[in-house]
């Protein structure tokens, strides 16, 4: 009986890092986007809203890349 501890450890590590990173990025993205809808009510400065929106899209872009890689893994 040979237990592949290295594979188990890498599954552990990769899952942990990727999950936390993805969830973190996505949350940053939606929080940044939500600033925009908050600002829509009040009169916040246009610049910071634009910045937040750009940041949000960058976060979503990274998440989208991760999902695409996931689909690639499924297909491959």
């Amino acid at each position, binding site marked *: *009986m*040979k*237990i*592949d501890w290295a*594979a*188990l450890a*890498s*599954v*552990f590590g*990769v*899952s*942990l890092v*990727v*999950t*936390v990173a*993805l*969830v*973190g990025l*996505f*949350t*940053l*993205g*939606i*929080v940044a*986007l*939500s*600033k*925009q*809808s*908050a600002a*829509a*009510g009040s009169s916040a400065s246009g610049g910071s809203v634009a910045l937040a929106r750009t940041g949000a899209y960058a976060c979503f872009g990274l*998440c989208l890349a991760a*999902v695409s890689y*996931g*689909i690639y*893994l*499924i*297909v*491959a």
Partner: protein
Amino acid sequence: MEHITLLLAIVVVTALVFDFTNGFHDTANAMATTISTGALKPKTAVAMSAVLNLIGAFLSVEVAKTISGGIVNEDGLRTEVIFAALVGAILWNLLTWLVGLPSSSSHALFGGLIGAAVMSAGWSSINGGTVVTKVLLPAIAAPLVAGLAAMLATRLTYRINRNVTDENQLKSTAKGYRAGQIASAGLVSLAHGTNDAQKTMGIITLALVTGGVLAPGSNPPLWVIVSAGVAIALGTYLGGWRIIRTMGKGLTDLQPPQGFAAQTSAATVILASSHLGFSLSTTQSCSGAVMGAGLGRKGGVVRWSTATRMFIAWGLTLPAAGLVGAGAEFLTKQGPWGITVTAILLVGGSFAIWLASRRRPVDHTNVNDTAGEDEPQGVVTTAIAAVQPPPVGGPAADLMTTIPAPAPAPDDPARPPATV
């Protein structure tokens, strides 16, 4: 196709039935959190999952070369043995569905195969070490990995959005969590269709090779791919509502951020494990992720009695499916009449379980109700409760004592006002 014997036809049909039970048993993995947090309506969720399962079945052409991945010596495996194994797996899948417990369909299949192979060729046909590395160790590792990842991710996501208090902002983040959850649930569905439909294709192909219809090493014919994909998609669309309820509501109460963290963790673990060479069960990863997300939120509770019942079911999966598989193989060994009896028992058993489920049906209309379902005292009680009509009135008082009422809002920033 001209040489398909009656036995072979029975095996193919049984394999498709197993595929079907696999589909509705595992709908919960992808969609339980999505349904319980209200990100998708129940019917929409299962429809989406079914379509993605179907697509997944066609995505990859690399069909599993073995049923058990080395647990059982499959050289010279007779067709009857495959049939007996499938009988064990199907009956265990249906029984766990009846009591609403998520358990691994692959492990049920392994169990059935082990039982049938032992009955057919003795203990020497089993590779004990592989049982440990492919079944026991993953069963411990999967919930730990997925649970830890989901717990940390839940903590993080609550931490990042703890300052979000504005009404519009809350609405916007809730929408975001919904979208994220749906995306990761879709990924899980797709991966499930690819992995599990291929398992069935592998079984049918193996049976066809054993029966001499296909040359060894050939790819599955198109009709096998199509029928396996359709069977798993139909099963998924039917929805294993009992298991969805346990996973989405029974283990813990999920808020949208938790659902998102759990589903993302599950999707990551499933993909990482299958591509880094240490396969983990989808069901066990998802259940672990849900529990981890439950622990990650401040004030979140995991109902350990439900979790314990689930762990017991995981432990029983292999021996129970094995016993049924062995019994079925004992019958099929007796000749054609034995195979007929086994087939009748399978149909009768499935029908009985279905009848029992009708006495207290769970479907898309009441999948998110928890009344009467929480905190039963143990496996036996649950099994009894599952086949008895619910007591009239009174569960509310019980619930009050076991589920702390969610504290109004402070640790709960992304709770949507009404997401349906």
